[in-house]
């Protein structure tokens, strides 16, 4: 086995620190900016500062900062996994990277067809972003996915993609699609077109938000219960919330890990379904060959 060069190890350390440091920075930022309070509160994302803008002030919140942290960490993970690719005696991380790429490739080809094989990077990045954003609450941070603005942005992106692929057969056939199957259903089709991104955003946001609200409620209830049970003890022992140790973690395993991962998977699956459903592939290729025949 050849000794790894100094540059290789240095790059590895850089990538690993790119994975870990953003989360540490987010934790430090949260600890520094959260005011001391006694009660457990359910609040939205903390506002760090406001940038004055002509029409509406731009508000920089915890959600935006945290989602940037996730993006940096994911880039670090990608660089780390694909660092030093070889054709023989491959490392474990290359196996892992290949496994991920093969799985997503297969999934996208199965659910979207061969034409959309270019969608693989987009799908895996939206999946990873969503999953890691939801997992952020495991560290006690504000998960960016429980802010409607972040998820709404992704849903808007998916909406533009759907519209782009519907427009690919020409704007006329896009407009004609609203009058299917009968012309007077056009208003309802129009509403359902705009309901798609809204429902995608609300589904993801609602799931993560409900998890965090329930976690806070349970934590408060356990605090009250332990006060009730051991409140008669003097001093420190009476105030110690012993029931809050461990029990919320079981709930967190469901609400953060399972629900967050499932919602990420569903967001990616729905993106694939909507985009591939919106694109009339037969009509597109028929038009393409017709155009080529005219040009000849």
């Amino acid at each position: 086995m050849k000794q790894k060069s100094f540059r290789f190890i240095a790059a590895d350390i850089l990538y690993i620190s790119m994975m870990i440091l953003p989360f540490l920075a987010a934790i430090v930022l949260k600890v520094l900016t959260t005011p001391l309070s006694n009660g457990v509160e359910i609040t939205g994302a903390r506002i760090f500062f406001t940038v004055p803008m002509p029409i509406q002030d731009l508000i920089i919140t915890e959600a935006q900062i945290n989602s940037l942290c996730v993006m940096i960490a994911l880039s670090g993970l990608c660089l780390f996994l694909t660092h030093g690719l070889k054709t023989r005696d491959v490392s474990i991380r290359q196996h892992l990277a290949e496994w991920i790429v093969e799985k997503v490739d297969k999934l996208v080809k199965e659910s979207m067809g061969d034409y959309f094989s270019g969608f693989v990077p987009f799908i895996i990045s939206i999946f990873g972003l969503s999953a890691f954003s939801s997992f952020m609450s495991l560290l006690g941070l504000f998960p960016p996915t429980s802010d409607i603005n972040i998820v709404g942005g992704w849903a808007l992106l998916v909406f533009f993609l759907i519209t782009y692929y519907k427009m690919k057969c020409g704007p006329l056939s896009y407009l004609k699609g609203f009058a299917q199957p009968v012309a007077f259903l056009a208003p309802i089709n129009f509403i359902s077109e705009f309901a798609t991104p809204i429902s995608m955003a609300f589904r993801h946001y609602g799931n993560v938000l409900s998890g965090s609200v329930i976690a806070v409620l349970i934590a408060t209830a356990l605090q009250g219960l332990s006060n009730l049970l051991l409140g008669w003890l003097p001093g420190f022992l009476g105030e110690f919330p012993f029931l809050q140790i461990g029990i919320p973690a079981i709930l967190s395993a469901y609400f953060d890990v399972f629900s967050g991962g499932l919602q990420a998977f569903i967001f990616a699956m729905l993106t694939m379904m909507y985009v591939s459903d919106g694109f009339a592939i037969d009509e597109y290729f028929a038009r393409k060959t017709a155009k080529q025949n005219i040009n000849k």
Partner: protein
Amino acid sequence: MLELAIGILLGGCALGAGCAMIAGIGPGIGEGNAVAAACEAIGRQPECKGSVTSTMLMGCAIAETTGLYALVIAILLIFVAPNLLVNILLKAVGA
């Protein structure tokens, strides 16, 4: 008089949030049906357990949507609406 108005407003918000969550019944029944059908399918063909489970989870998550709409409305009514409505009321009264 203003206290009474604010009290009615807050009570209305809380009641509305509670009523909105009645929508939780629908997804509950729907997901129960989905899981029952998935169990039947796995019992009939145990070899396709994996694909049935993943399809069921996906369907459940989509069936949940209406319940989540209700949840979002309830959360808005509890955390956002009272402030907003009380401010509107105070502005209208001129206090």
